[in-house]
């Protein structure tokens, strides 16, 4: 139990860019009416509970990993995408990063 004490230093709203991105995608989908917030909260709290059985969650990186998993599941359940698509596009992004010269913008090839 250390987290409640470590609260004095100012902290960024989002510690990592991807935390902000996954937050924004979720909020945008909620606003577009893909799901309501109580539904999100119910699903998200279930994921947190499940992850929390394995280890005590610190509310940082592990919180957003649970958030991402919840969003993926929600989109797969809703038929917006499927696990294979997510894996494939994710691999395409990885390839794009590894083949883009440092300093150039990383873009996904249009295949």
């Amino acid at each position, binding site marked *: *139990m250390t*987290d*409640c*004490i*470590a*609260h004095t230093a100012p*902290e960024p*709203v*989002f*510690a*990592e*860019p*991807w935390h*902000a*991105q*996954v*937050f*924004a*995608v979720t*909020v*945008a*989908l*909620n606003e*577009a009416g*893909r799901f309501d*917030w109580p539904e*999100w*909260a*119910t699903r*998200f*709290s279930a994921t*947190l509970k499940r992850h*929390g059985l394995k280890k*005590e*969650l*610190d*509310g*940082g*990186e*592990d*919180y957003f990993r649970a958030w*991402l998993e919840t969003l*993926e599941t929600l*989109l797969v359940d809703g038929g*917006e*995408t499927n696990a294979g698509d*997510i894996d494939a*596009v*994710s691999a*395409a*992004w*990885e390839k794009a*990063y*590894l*083949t*883009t*010269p*440092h300093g*150039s913008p*990383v873009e996904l090839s249009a295949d």
Partner: protein
Amino acid sequence: MAQPAAMPHDDHDHPHALLPPEPALRVKALETILTRKGLVDPAALDEIIDTYQNKIGPQNGARVVAKAWTDPEFKRALLEDATPVVADLGFYGRQGEHIVVVENTPAQHNMVVCTLCSCYPWPLLGIPPGWYKSDAYRARAVREPRKVLAEFGVALPSETAVRVWDSTAEIRYLVLPMRPKGTVSLDEDALTALVTRDSMIGTGLPKVPS
């Protein structure tokens, strides 16, 4: 904060762009898929991030508290039904649909938690801090609130009861802290500067004027 999972080239020249950690790639993948389907707009995502990173934060809630300290009629209305009252100040929208303000008194100190996840009044406080989202706070705030308060440096007189409010996706609580002594001569702006984020969650007290 945990280190990103995959940052393989941190200490030498990069032949290629720095590879983000695995979850970041998956988020990019979701964004790509949803953008291609027309379900999200990248510009709208940037706007959402900018809003919560730069525009909305505890300074909003602090204005509400300072106004309640100086305007009895505003305070009465705020405690009766906060949502329309704060909306009049321009604080409304996402996760602010039903806000309830609970007032600290010498007899009762209020403290807010979301035991299920991290429900929080975004329009007034922005995005919750890491500790608010931690398992430790979520479990212990209810079980041993005085001990948690002590860890935050808040020592209350023994005659002050502690009441813990559990925010949900339907109701989000904001604490109205007690106005510090020695602030009679301060105007609303000066008072606003004394109101901390934690004092509106109930894990802190307002600053005392120097």
